[in-house]
C-alpha cells in the first residue's frame, strides 16, 4: 500500500490516531501529527511512498504537534518530537510541514552512523552517482532539482549516505527543498514538476518542496556507485565554469560537509579516502541552470560500474 492509496481524510485520521509507518528507502518512519498541513504535505509529496504494516518495526518514531504548554494558546507553534523528546525549539505553526522534513534530516544525520552522512545532494545516471556537497546558499538543491528534472535519479537532496561496508551510496530520496528564488526557477525549468505550498518567513526564507519523481521512489533500494564529486556555486551572472579539484582538497571539503566524520574516526577516514579513489572531483560555478545540467550530464563516466 502507498500513501496515495489512502484518501486525504483517512490519512489525516491515521496521523491523528495511530500514525502511519512510512517506508523511505531503507528506513521506516512512524509519523503522527494532528496538524492538517502535515497530512496535506505527506499526501502530496509522499504519495508514491510505501506504507508498511502498523505492527512493524520503525527506525524513527516522530510526531509533529503543538507544544504541550500554555504557549500553544499564546502563539500557535509546532514542535518536532523524536522518541518523545524534542531536539529543536518550537517553530511557528505554519512551518509544520517543513519542520517534518528538517526533523527527519536530523533523525538520520544524528543517528545513522552505519553511513558516512554527508551534507550533499546526490543524483544518479546510468549507474553512476554524482555527489553535490555544499553549504546552504550554494545552489545545491536547485541544481539537484534541475538534474532530476532532466532525467537523473534522485538519491537525496540533503543527505548523502555513504555505506561504510562497500562504499556505495544508499538512496534516501525525499522531497527536494527549494528556497526563495529557486522555487520560481524550478517552476519555470520544469513546468511538470509538483511543488508543495510555499512556507514563508522560515529561517531559510521562503521554502517549498519538490515532489520526488515516482521512479526515484520506486528504485529507492538500489544503491549506486559514486563517480563524481561536484562542489556547486550559484552566483547570478557568473559564466559557467567546471574546474577540476584535487582529490586531497576535495577530501577536506567533503569531510567539512559530513555530519559524522569525526564520530566515525578511522572508519570515516577510510570511507572518504575510498570515495576519493573512485571519483573525479570538480568545482562548478553557474548562473544558468540549463547550462549547468547540460555540462554535468555530458561528463564522461569515470569509475567502473
Amino acid at each position: 500500500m502507498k500513501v496515495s492509496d489512502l484518501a486525504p481524510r483517512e490519512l489525516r485520521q491515521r496521523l491523528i490516531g495511530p500514525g502511519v509507518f512510512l517506508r523511505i528507502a531503507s528506513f521506516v518512519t512512524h509519523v503522527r501529527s494532528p496538524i492538517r498541513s502535515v497530512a496535506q504535505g505527506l499526501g502530496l509529496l509522499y504519495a508514491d511512498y510505501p506504507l508498511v504494516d502498523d505492527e512493524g518495526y520503525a527506525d524513527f518514531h516522530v510526531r509533529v504537534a503543538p507544544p504541550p504548554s500554555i504557549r500553544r494558546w499564546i502563539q500557535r507553534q509546532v514542535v518536532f518530537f523524536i522518541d518523545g523528546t524534542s531536539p529543536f525549539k518550537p517553530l511557528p505553526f505554519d512551518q509544520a510541514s517543513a519542520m517534518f522534513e528538517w526533523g527527519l534530516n536530523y533523525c538520520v544525520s544524528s543517528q545513522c552512523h552505519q553511513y558516512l552522512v554527508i551534507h550533499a545532494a546526490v543524483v544518479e545516471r546510468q549507474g553512476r552517482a554524482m555527489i553535490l556537497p555544499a553549504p546552504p546558499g550554494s545552489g545545491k538543491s536547485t541544481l539537484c532539482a534541475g538534474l532530476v528534472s532532466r532525467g537523473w535519479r534522485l538519491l537525496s537532496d540533503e543527505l548523502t549516505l555513504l555505506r561504510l561496508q562497500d562504499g556505495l551510496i544508499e538512496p534516501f530520496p525525499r522531497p527536494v527543498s527549494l528556497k526563495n528564488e529557486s522555487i520560481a526557477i524550478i517552476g519555470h525549468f520544469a513546468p511538470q514538476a509538483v511543488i508543495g505550498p510555499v512556507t514563508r518567513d522560515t529561517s531559510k526564507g521562503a521554502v517549498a518542496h519538490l515532489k520526488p519523481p515516482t521512479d526515484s521512489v520506486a528504485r529507492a533500494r538500489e544503491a549506486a556507485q559514486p563517480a563524481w564529486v561536484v562542489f556547486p556555486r550559484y552566483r547570478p551572472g557568473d559564466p559557467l565554469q567546471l574546474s577540476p579539484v584535487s582529490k586531497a582538497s576535495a577530501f577536506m571539503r567533503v569531510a567539512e560537509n559530513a555530519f559524522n566524520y569525526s564520530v566515525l574516526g578511522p572508519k570515516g577516514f577510510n570511507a572518504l579516502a575510498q570515495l576519493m579513489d573512485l571519483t573525479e572531483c570538480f568545482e562548478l560555478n553557474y548562473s544558468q541552470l540549463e547550462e549547468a545540467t547540460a555540462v554535468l550530464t555530458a561528463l564522461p563516466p569515470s569509475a567502473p560500474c
Partner: protein
Amino acid sequence: MRCWDDTCIVYSELTGQTHLMGSFPALVLTLLKDGLSNSVQLSARIASTLQVEDDAKLLATIEETLADFERLGLVELNPV
C-alpha cells in the same frame, strides 16, 4: 595516510584530527613511522631519498616540520 598527486591527507588516531599536507612533511611523517627518531637520521635519509644535499638548511626544514607536527599533536618531541 593517503596521498593523491603531491598532497597527502593524514588521520591522527591520537587526536582524531585530519590534516592536509604536502609531500615533504608526509615523507617526514612516514619516516618517523618507520622508526627514524631524530632529525639527523631523518636528514640523512631524506637527502638520500630526494637526492639533495644533507646540509644545515635541510636539517632546519626538518626541525621546523617536526615542531609543526608537535604543535598539531602528531608527535611528541624529546629534548636531546
